[in-house]
């Protein structure tokens, strides 16, 4: 008959802790500290707003006929519910932390201006790039802000209604690629140097070709931009096809990575992204016009296979920093899903749109989102 210690040793020696416990603990601490900072900032913002409201109410001449309380307490949402603003979600605990109001307040809403991009996280995780409104005018511009909501800065000044969208950081955090249309043509890919302030145009599609570059992202070594090109009928709604290309960040001739031709039913490949180690290329693909697949290929586009068969149009995917998972959202259900690249197992993690990895355990999620899916016959969730 075994004694107590023998039973203890027998049981516990079979389940030693997984390697890397200290690193996991340190990541947990970083996330916790960050969420606390954001929470403190949100509380400070609420207190500041309340103080301003009190001052205004007590100003002589202010209208005091109302019987409503001047400041309504904002109820704390029950645990597990989706915050009413863009948020961070800790994938380990499910804890949701609202993004600072200074960021969400400048981000252009998806309902009116149909912003088709989410937050882009700088490589060091300290800053966000996103699409905001140019001083209330309906021109989309790229903004950059610190994650705690300080340092909000407009970094593009595109003088036209189509504006700028789809920001993506370079691996060294010094440049941002984006889609813009400063002239009368359809959008093209540009790269902005944040320090110098200048930009370089990388693609030169014109309105006459009906081809629109979209979804730029840097290669892991920062030398190239991967993007997709959709060919449209007229200017709206029904892409003839889409394929993934790569162009040197210094400019020059682009090359086709995924050779999936149009057949007039919106077939093709879109939203190409290289894995963090540069060995794999993920992209949205379809079979028979379904537009419900996430495909994976070698970085040169060869050996393609289907990784995910979704229930809906898959949108805007992104690789986790460690390259083990991909997050995406489904167009109509607004389900945010994470897929394990090795196994293909999918996990529903949140509701919202445009998930972006802040670190290996945290996603930033927009609560609203529309997208004229490059492979879909019609846009969904967008006005107009």
């Amino acid at each position, binding site marked *: *008959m*075994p*004694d*107590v*210690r023998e*039973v*203890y040793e*027998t*049981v*516990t020696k*079979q*389940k*030693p*802790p*997984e390697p890397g*416990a*200290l690193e*996991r*603990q340190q990541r*947990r*601490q970083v996330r*916790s500290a960050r969420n606390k900072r954001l929470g403190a900032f949100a509380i400070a913002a609420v207190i500041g707003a309340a103080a301003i409201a009190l001052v205004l109410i007590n100003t002589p001449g202010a209208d005091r006929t109302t019987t409503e309380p001047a400041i309504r307490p904002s109820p704390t949402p029950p645990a597990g519910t989706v915050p009413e603003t863009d948020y961070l979600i800790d994938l*380990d605990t499910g804890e949701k932390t609202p993004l600072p109001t200074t960021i969400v307040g400048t981000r252009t809403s998806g309902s009116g201006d149909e912003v088709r991009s989410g937050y882009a996280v700088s490589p060091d995780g300290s800053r966000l790039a996103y699409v905001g409104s140019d001083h209330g005018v309906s021109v989309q511009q790229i903004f950059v802000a610190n994650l705690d909501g300080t340092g909000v800065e407009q970094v593009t000044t595109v003088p036209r209604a189509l504006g700028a969208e789809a920001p993506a950081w370079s691996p060294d955090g010094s440049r941002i690629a984006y889609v813009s249309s400063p002239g009368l043509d359809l959008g093209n890919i540009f790269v902005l140097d944040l320090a110098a302030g200048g930009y370089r145009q990388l693609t030169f599609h014109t309105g006459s070709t009906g081809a629109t570059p979209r979804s730029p992202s840097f290669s892991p070594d920062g030398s190239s931009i991967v993007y997709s090109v959709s060919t449209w009928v007229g200017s709206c709604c029904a892409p003839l096809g889409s394929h993934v290309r790569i162009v040197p960040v210094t400019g020059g001739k682009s090359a086709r990575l995924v050779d999936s031709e149009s057949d007039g039913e919106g077939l093709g490949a879109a939203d190409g992204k290289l894995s963090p180690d540069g060995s794999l290329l993920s992209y949205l693909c379809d079979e028979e016009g379904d537009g419900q697949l996430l495909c994976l290929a070698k970085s040169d586009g060869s050996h393609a296979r289907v990784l995910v068969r979704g229930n809906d149009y898959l949108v805007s995917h992104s690789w986790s920093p460690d390259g083990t998972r991909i997050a995406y959202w489904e167009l109509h259900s607004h389900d945010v899903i994470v897929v394990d690249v090795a196994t293909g197992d999918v996990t529903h993690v949140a509701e919202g749109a445009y998930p972006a990895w802040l670190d290996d355990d945290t996603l930033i999620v927009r609560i609203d989102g529309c997208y004229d899916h490059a492979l879909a016959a019609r846009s969904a969730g967008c006005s107009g």
Partner: protein
Amino acid sequence: VQAEDNVVELDRDREAPVGPPSFEELFLDVHDRLYRALYFVTGSSADAEELMQDAFLKLWERWDRLDSIEDPVAYLFRVALNGFRMRARRARTAAGKVLPVVGSRDPFEDVNVREDVRRMLRAVTPRQRTAIVLTDIFGYSSDQAARIMGIRPTTVRVLASQGRTALRGSEGGVDA
């Protein structure tokens, strides 16, 4: 294998490092013990890892006030075991709302042990396992274990005794 002639004498006169350990040093020193203990109590490697991380997170948040914590290791145990109790309570509440009776999972179903050992483990409740771990494995007195578990020392002794009895193959499975 080193020949005896080549054995290098360690410098026994070298002074041991002075001062309290860093958080990382404490983590590396303690996490294996804490994880195994929590695994023995919960029967789930995932729960053990999460409870351990939560406990270390709380300790890390108080690291600049470490002087106020008498025994960091006991503190880690207390926080982790509190977390386990709260989780169990929440799970019972949630299950009670949707299901009249919930069949309990075998906590050690994924461990390959002899059937007699598995039977023994099933016969011991988590509280009894906690009392056994603290007193018999880690050598805490019943007073110290009581402070960690938040119960009276006599209850610790009863729980440990019940657990030992159950592990010897006789009765058990009902908490004091």
